[in-house]
Each structure stands twice: as structure tokens, then as C-alpha cells.
């Protein structure tokens, strides 16, 4: 994508950087220019806030790590049969 060097980014350009921005995938210069746009454009800022909340919801609701206690016991049991001894 070509964005004129130093120019103020349009809403259209900024929205194309949405996920890259929220995922920390942008290089410093582009990131700074997105930030500058968000500082003065309430519409895009609210949009990015909405998408940020979505990413947090995905991360918090889909984290199933707590469900593995039973599985861990089963695996350790199987390891024990193979001679494994937990310290």
C-alpha cells in the first residue's frame, strides 16, 4: 500500500491498518501516523476501541487452560506407568 510520506492518513487508510495496529504488527512510522489520526478522529478512535474490546473478549472467553487439570492428572498417571516420577 502506498501512503504518501509524511501525509496525514485518511480514515480509509487508517481502517486498513486496523488489525495490524491492534496486533502490534506495524512498523514504528506507520504506527505513529495511525496514532496521530486516532488522536484527532473520534469516529476511528471509537471503531478501534470497539475492535480492541472484541480482541480482549476473544482472549478472555476462549482461554481454556483451566480445563486441563484432569488431563494433566491422566497424563501424569500414564507417565508414572512408564517409570516417570514427579519431583
Amino acid at each position, binding site marked *: 500500500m502506498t501512503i504518501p510520506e509524511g501525509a496525514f492518513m485518511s480514515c480509509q487508510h487508517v*481502517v*486498513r491498518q*486496523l*488489525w495490524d495496529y491492534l*496486533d*502490534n*504488527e506495524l512498523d514504528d512510522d506507520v504506527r505513529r501516523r495511525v496514532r496521530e489520526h486516532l488522536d*484527532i*478522529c*473520534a*469516529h476511528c*478512535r*471509537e*471503531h478501534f476501541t*470497539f*475492535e480492541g*474490546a*472484541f*480482541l*480482549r*473478549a*476473544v*482472549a478472555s*472467553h*476462549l*482461554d481454556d487452560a483451566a480445563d486441563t487439570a484432569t488431563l494433566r492428572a491422566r497424563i501424569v498417571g500414564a507417565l508414572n506407568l512408564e517409570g516417570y516420577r514427579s519431583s
Partner: protein
Amino acid sequence: MEPFRALASSDRAMDHIDVSQLVPVADFETEALEFLPNVARYARLLTRDQADADDLTQDTFLRAYEKWSTYRPGTDCRKWLFTICRNLYLRNRDRAKRFVSEEDATSELRATGELYERAAANGLKNLFDHIDIGPALKRSIGELLPEYREAVLLVDIEDYTYEEAASTVGVPIGTIRSRLFRARRRLQQSLLEHARDLGFSLAAETSSAHEEVAS
């Protein structure tokens, strides 16, 4: 009464519709939209995925509307629609096989932007802050195709960079990006539909959402 009407004002494919080809709604509605259930069933059969089928059905009718002037009244409209549907399906499939272009990621971003506009218009700006979307979110992610689910798992839950996720899966970064963007768009679409089905209190949402003022 408006004589002409766009099919879906929020759809991205609308960009390509030539206004000069707009036709009276009545004809299209009675001749073509009549077969929506048939096309939806056919699309489901081809794609074997509900969300893909919905997209394909929508694209089929948008394309049919665009090409409506080439349809000859009195001929088999269902067959004409099936042909469009099938061609779109094959083209999408071939394209997906060959490469996943930057264009796909861009069109997903556009669709995501449209979803946001719709959510905002319905007073659902705070939708994702609600604790009770958890079950709907889990269900929606279960409905994604495995490769989309994988992209979400690696990037959104394991915090992988696009590059790390791409090398884990063994695909180019562009592929991970478009899979991820698509998966997110799908999840948001499901959540918005879920909110609508619950009859989410739009008024309450709107009154609690404070407007930010541009400086």
C-alpha cells in the same frame, strides 16, 4: 415509493454495481429472489459451511442483480442463478487454492468496518464488553473452519505474531492475515446476530454510550 432499491446497502460487492443497470425491483423480486431458498440450499451443498454458504448466496444475488439485464424473461431463472452460484463458488475455490491475496485481507477489513457501522447504528458499540457473550463466542468459534480457528488460536490466544503463526502453520503471512481477519469478521457477525436474536436492549445501550467529541 422508490422505484429502485439496492439489495443490501452494506455489502461490499455493491461497489461494483453499475447504477445504469439498475432494474425495477418488482421483476427481480418475483423472478429471482423467489429462488433464494433454492440457491441457499445449493450453496450449502457446495460449500458445506453455513457461513460460506450465506456469503455465496449473497454474492450470487448481488451478481445476478448486476447482470439482471442479461437475463431473458421467461427462461429458467433458477437455473440461471445456479450457474452464477456455481461459477462464483468455483472461482473462489480456485483463488483460495492458488494464493491468498492482499485483496482478501483488504476486503475483510472493509466488511469488518461495515459490521462496526451497523453495530454502532444499532447502539451496540459496547457489545464486546458484555460478559455474557462468552457462550456465543465459544459456539461461534466452534463453527469456524479449522484453518480459521487455528489462526485465531495462535494469534489471539497464544499471542503469536503473524510471522510466528505463519511459520507454525507453514503458510505465507498473507494467508494467515486473511484467515485471521476473516475469522474475526465471522465471529463478530455471529455475535451481532446473536445480540439481535436476544433483542438486545438497543435503547439502553444507546443511552449508556457516551459520545466522544473530536478535538
